[in-house]
């Protein structure tokens, strides 16, 4: 049984400063997690009765899932819309999606008051509850992603298991369609959670269209994270960046940003929301709409920016940041609890979130090294050779 075929990148296995920092964060996070489990949420977080949801819900859960939307976006592009030219981006997208959902599940586990009951929605049903649907979809989709990674793993480690590979090839369309369907449902339903509390939110985000808006912005988040991940990976693993392909993907990102902008403007206009006001929610709103939707869309219009590495970094960075900011605005900054209460995350909340990000990067790196994520023939410092998805 072959292990690794080659060194995936020069200097692999050496402890670099970056990795040391990630490991330290992970250890800190584990200690924080132990403290949280022993002493409870009240003692370790700054959450209170007026702010029952905080950093963990806004970042780990809402932003994490939106940024992990690349998996289903690329699956849809390649298997449903037959855009085969993006095939080399599919496997990294699946890996990053799986890592993103892992962050979600671990983050949610520690956020629950009774984490050991995380399985309750499986047997205790409330079909009226949007959160019930979200928990089922996330559960099923994480399983789909795990199976997809398992199939990828079989390719390298599955000699003698050809019948398995054949079986999975046969059901693959089913998996792909299930993934797209489940993602469409829960990405939009995460927004629909906020349908119940429009009065508690700033009018800028309290809309009946929050579900579709969440879906489109998740597609934006997914595509920008794929771009970022591809650029960073090619730098870290010393491979030529796939600028041409990413510039093409950028066109898709541009269309998604335009659709999102049109939806936002239509929604605000239809509800007659006061936009030109200067206060804290509006500041966040302007940054979100103009800084992270309009600006990257404009940058994408210039081919010389779209086809440069630096330009792509900026475009996808801004767009991804915008999705995160939107999730914070909907769930935290735009939420008005009791006026006498405020909320700012505690050190433990921040450490555990940082540790989750470190965990995501480390697992992603592990996956890149031990799974055939990139097409065959694309060896270290080698020339890029197209392969099958």
């Amino acid at each position: 049984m072959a292990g690794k075929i080659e060194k995936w990148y020069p200097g692999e296995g050496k402890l670099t400063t970056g990795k040391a920092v990630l490991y330290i964060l992970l250890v800190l996070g584990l200690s924080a997690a132990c403290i949280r489990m022993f002493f409870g949420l009240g003692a370790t977080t700054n959450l209170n009765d007026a702010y029952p949801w905080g950093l963990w819900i806004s970042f780990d859960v809402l932003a994490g899932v939106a940024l992990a939307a690349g998996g289903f976006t690329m699956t849809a592009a390649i298997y449903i819309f037959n855009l085969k030219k993006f095939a080399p981006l599919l496997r990294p997208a699946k890996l990053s999606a799986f890592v993103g959902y892992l962050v979600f599940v671990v983050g949610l586990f520690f956020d629950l008051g009774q984490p050991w009951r995380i399985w309750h929605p499986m047997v205790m049903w409330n079909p009226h509850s949007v959160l019930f649907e979200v928990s089922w979809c996330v559960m099923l989709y994480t399983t789909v992603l795990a199976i997809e990674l398992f199939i990828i793993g079989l390719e390298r480690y599955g000699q003698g298991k050809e019948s398995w590979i054949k079986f999975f090839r046969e059901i693959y369309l089913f998996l792909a369609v299930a993934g797209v369907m489940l993602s469409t449902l829960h990405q939009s339903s995460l927004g629909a959670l906020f349908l119940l509390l429009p009065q508690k939110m700033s009018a800028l985000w309290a809309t009946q269209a929050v579900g579709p808006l969440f879906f489109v912005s998740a597609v934006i988040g997914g595509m920008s994270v794929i771009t970022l991940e591809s650029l960073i990976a090619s730098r870290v693993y010393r491979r030529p960046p796939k600028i041409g392909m990413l510039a093409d993907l950028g066109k898709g990102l541009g269309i998604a940003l335009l659709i999102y902008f049109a939806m936002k403007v239509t929604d605000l206009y239809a509800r007659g929301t006061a936009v030109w006001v200067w206060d804290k929610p509006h500041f966040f709103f302007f940054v979100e709409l103009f800084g992270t939707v309009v600006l990257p869309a404009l940058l994408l219009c210039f081919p010389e920016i779209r086809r440069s590495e630096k330009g792509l970094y900026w475009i996808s960075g801004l767009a991804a940041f915008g999705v995160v900011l939107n999730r914070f605005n909907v769930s935290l900054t735009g939420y008005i609890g009791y006026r006498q209460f405020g909320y700012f995350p505690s050190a433990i909340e921040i450490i555990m979130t940082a540790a989750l990000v470190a965990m995501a990067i480390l697992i992603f790196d592990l996956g890149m090294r031990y799974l055939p994520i990139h097409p065959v023939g694309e060896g270290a410092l080698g020339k890029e050779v197209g392969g099958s998805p």
Partner: protein
Amino acid sequence: MSKAILIDTTKCIGCRACQVACKSWNDLKGGQATFSETWSNPRYLSSNQYTRIVFREISRPDGRLEWYFISRRCMHCLDPACASACPVAALVKLPSGPVVYDDERCIGCRYCMMACPFQIPKFQWESAVPLVRKCTFCADRQAMGLAPACTTTCPTGTLLFGERAELLTEAHRRIGLDPNKYYPQVYGEKIAGGTSKLYLTPLSFEELGLTQVGFRTDLGDAPQGLRGREWMSKVPLVAVAVGGLAVGLHYFNQRRAAIEAKEPKED
């Protein structure tokens, strides 16, 4: 038939016997009283405090200063947002009136606290094994044929326990008898789909400054949970539509690519 409590705040003297009765029956720890500009003690509802009285000193148009006392607790909505929100159905509206909570089901996600338009469910933050707590409408006492603890102890008849329909008739009778004494609307009759707590007040809730402490008046007459349920009713359709569309487009695009590959290339 559904039970309710009519709270005629014009009769309340702010003695807080209801708070004490609630604590005794539910076996809740006593809290430390503190001074604050609100006069109310305690200042907030919590997992250890299911009901409290909001104190209000209002200057009337004729220059008189008047004290008003408004009991705050779970409204026991007819169609509760918390029950629509809860993913594990830990919160349920009983046909007899109370909105009850099942300790064994709750996972501690706190979506009920986000969803409740009256900001009622409270969390046991101090516990490592926390649960949600709120007024139970003494569902346990009602099951034994007893009235809720607070209503049995109220010395002035502010809290009147009975059938919701009858209490509404009574509330409107009182308003009709003395229109100068009461604000002409019963808070809880229609708001958020109607609640099992019905409030008679001398002034509007805005004038009493109650919208700041959880008694919202901007909720409309539709229950909050309805929006979530409408969304959920569309989910099966969306699932089938997206799934069908995905499969259809897959074969359509495959076929198109196959035909394009076969056709001679025109330059």
